[in-house]
């Protein structure tokens, strides 16, 4: 199937939205704005996935990231009441540094991608997409999946360790 104008317009709207809200994440003053922009960026990204016919990934992105993780962020941000952070001004140096890193990257990305013809469109999604992913995860990709489990365990231990009240000087319950 060829690329229609509608597909083109949808793609660029979603892409521009994703980039703009990602910029808001770093440029926003209030942490609440930043967290909400991050959620927006995720949702735009999910839209792009839908366009690629990766429906399952898109749904997961909305459910897990925009739905659960970002809402958790928002809770924490609102509970912590980060006024000092909201007042902080971002210097021009930070902007320049950001441009210096992102500019060449964007240019390199453009030069790499632009010559490629977009023809063909995405491959059709398999009818049993979820089963397909699930089967791959628990057969071929079982080792990375299990390592991810270790990763989450370590992260949980670390979160408990670093957030437990009492600090490092607290010896309660420790030999």
């Amino acid at each position, binding site marked *: 199937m060829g690329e229609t104008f509608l597909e083109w317009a949808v793609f660029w709207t979603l892409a521009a939205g994703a980039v703009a809200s990602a910029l808001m994440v770093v440029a926003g003053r209030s942490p609440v704005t930043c967290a909400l922009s991050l959620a927006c960026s995720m949702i735009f990204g999910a839209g792009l996935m839908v366009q690629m016919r990766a429906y399952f990934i898109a749904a997961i992105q909305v459910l897990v990231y925009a739905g659960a993780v970002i809402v958790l962020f928002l809770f924490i941000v609102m509970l912590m009441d980060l006024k000092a952070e909201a007042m902080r001004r971002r210097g021009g140096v930070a902007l320049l540094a950001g441009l210096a890193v992102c500019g060449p990257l964007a240019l390199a990305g453009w030069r*790499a991608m632009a010559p490629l013809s977009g023809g063909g469109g995405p491959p059709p999604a398999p009818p049993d997409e979820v089963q397909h992913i699930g089967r791959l995860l628990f057969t071929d990709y079982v*080792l*990375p999946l299990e*390592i991810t489990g270790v990763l989450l365990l370590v992260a949980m231990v670390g979160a408990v*360790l*670093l957030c437990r009240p009492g600090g*490092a000087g607290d010896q309660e319950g*420790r030999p």
Partner: protein
Amino acid sequence: MIVGLSCGMLASSGCTMPWWQIPELCWLLLGTVLLLGGCWGPETLRSRVAGVSAALFGLMLVLALFFWAPGGEAFGGFYRWDGLSILFKRLFLFGGFIASWMMLRSPDGPVAHRVEYVALPWFAVVAMGLMASAGDFAVLFVSLETLTITSYILVSMERDRGTSLEAGVKYLVMGGLSAAFLVYGIALLYGSCGTLRFDEMAGRLPGALAGDMGPVVRAGLLCVMVAVGFKVAAAPFQWWAPDVYQGAPVPITGFLAVASKAAGFAVLLRLLWGPFGGVRDTLAPMVAWLAAASILVGNLGALSQRNLKRLMGYSGIGHAGYLLMGVAAGSAAGVEAVVYYLAGYAVAALVVLGLLGGLVDRLGGAEMRHLNGLAKREPGLAWLMLVGLASLAGLPPLAGFLGKWMVFAAAFQAGLAWLVIVAGVGVVASLYYYLAPVRNMFFESPPPDAPPLELDLPFRTCVSILMGLAIILGIAPGPFMATIGRLLAGL
């Protein structure tokens, strides 16, 4: 224990290993048992958890040294059990062993009693082992993330201390950036080759680079190399290293300096002699430039440092540069030199950091002036420190000298004479800053009210053994080099 023994011994034969024979599984189990046992176990275990951990690391190291033989893979090629991974796994276990031995001494205050402090290095070693054995980019990415997350926790464990927390946050931000580069690079490579498997990519990458996906492949390779550059702290991706080395508890600094750096090089070698094998000639100049930049930034940056931990951070960047020279050489001799250099660096850096870890609370700090008159207070320790620093500086007959010699020779044979000249500048500069603490130790007088330095026997033994290794590796490298050559034969 039984599982541990069987895993270590059985993981030696056959072409496809059953999944339960991979040693990481046993290490993971031991780490979990230590973690749970240290929290809820009997009092006798809880008070000795660091000792138990060190003993288990020692046992695993012995098994790894005497019972492992290469050959085979598991999980359908996702896990590779070859000579390269075995060599590096031994190095990781060695780093974990020495780090947990240093924790026995618990010089860093109450934090050292925390069971997580003792158990988390096990998880880090598991992650490193998987990185060294990765046969697929998915395995590489998740195990690298496991390692970095474990490292963040270990670095910022003393969260009451500002520098520790600062180190943790800086490491977190830099690690996040590097992970972003890695995953983007992997995505680009997947897009152009259609596979994440190392063996399949090795076949498809040269064709993809030559075709009209060429620029995409180039961008992908660049991103992955940047991420590896972060991991090994090569300039210009080195900013985090001095702060992290300074802020972390000393045993963790040693662990990061030795094992984490080795893990980065394991990945680099695995990639360049695996999926990127066909395009190694394209990447070699980039590695050479990274090497030159790291040598200059590390060694010149170290010149003005007055804190020993920070100095080790900068000099670690310089050593990453020397190691990259061996990689840039692109020859079998270069790879062998890299492995030898890593072992020599590990031994010498652990002598210096181990002594520092044992003494830091008695000396009052890790600044150079705190070492004043150490030779008069404790001549034996001062000489140990001298040997460690001399090996790092590359003075004969120590391991550091031979390592540098082999790396330089490999680079010279590969036609990188300019790089050898740059490295020569680095070595001359490093002599200055490695000998500065020696001046403090031997030619300054100790502070008048200096308390006696008590260092228990196990600790002295540990550091003395390390020093012995530095000398033996330098004088009689024959058996060691033979092992390296045998294990890397199929690379």
